[in-house]
């Protein structure tokens, strides 16, 4: 188990469905904490509502499980009152780019020193598979049976508009995810790590993927890692922006 001292193994098994990507990101984040030698008594995790927002419960750290979409203002409040703390947000696409999207934009504008781990599975998985703000065009979900007609939110454009840190990875590219998390945690200012993750039960099955492994193999084909730091990532690119 990676960096066991940051986790609470007694709370396992996790609440998530078989094959969910949230567990993989929890492991990578704990590993990144370990690699950076972060002080557990000086680190706070904040989340909103959703599957990914359950993650702080598996960390042996102080945490706040807040209201839907309000992880960012809670974290900003903690950081303002206690600037010496490392404040990390762990939440999903519906939470951070749907109901809480304005908070994300304004925290980015203020360049508050926070690290946001955004689990983007492109679906509202907890409630049964309704389309989310990041569902791609034409994709079939429970609430878009003929294909989604709305364009997805461009998270990179929102945070890069204010010059904040942005990195994108997938749950297939775990070494890159670890690198992106370490870079975001050491960045002074607002940092977002956008993790493309899989929801095999409420999203993948409807798209014809038999299991989580097939979804990860799809990420392998659909996303291309870019070397070094770039100004902007293209639609199928993953990596770290400057």
């Amino acid at each position, binding site marked *: 188990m990676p960096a066991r001292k940051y986790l609470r193994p007694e709370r*396992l098994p*996790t609440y998530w469905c*078989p094959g969910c990507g*949230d567990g993989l990101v929890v492991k990578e984040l704990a590993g990144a904490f370990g690699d950076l030698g972060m002080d557990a008594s000086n680190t706070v995790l904040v989340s909103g509502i959703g599957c990914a927002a359950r993650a702080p419960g598996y960390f042996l750290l102080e945490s706040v499980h807040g209201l839907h979409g309000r992880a960012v203002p809670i974290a900003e409040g903690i950081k303002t009152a206690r600037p010496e703390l490392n404040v990390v947000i762990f939440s999903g696409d519906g939470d951070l780019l749907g109901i809480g999207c304005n908070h994300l934009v304004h925290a980015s504008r203020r360049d508050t020193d926070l690290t946001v781990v955004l689990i983007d599975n492109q679906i509202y998985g907890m409630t049964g598979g309704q389309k989310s703000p990041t569902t791609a065009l034409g994709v079939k979900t429970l609430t878009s049976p003929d294909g989604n007609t709305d364009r997805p939110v461009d998270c990179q454009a929102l945070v890069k508009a204010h010059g904040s840190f942005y990195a994108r990875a997938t749950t297939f590219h*775990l070494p890159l995810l670890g690198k992106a998390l370490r870079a975001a945690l050491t960045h002074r200012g607002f940092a977002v790590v956008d993790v493309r993750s899989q929801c095999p039960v409420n999203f993948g099955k409807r798209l014809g993927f038999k*299991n*989580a*492994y097939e979804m990860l193999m799809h990420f392998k084909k659909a996303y291309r890692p870019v070397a070094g730091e770039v100004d902007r990532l293209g639609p199928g690119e993953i990596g770290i922006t400057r």
Partner: protein
Amino acid sequence: MKKHFKVSIDRKLCKGCSLCAGFCPKGNLKFVDGELAFDGECTGCMLCVRYCPDMGITVEEVKP
């Protein structure tokens, strides 16, 4: 000298998602009667450990 590894599956943690079975380059992890089972020679690549979302697999080196 060739290294030997012991693969342990924690039944309480395994949810049967089959990610490890997909990633094992030797095809050593398979489902037998709906339960994950290890059979074969492990090369110690640790892909199953890395890709298990539930921290249900441990691989240890064993001295012969």
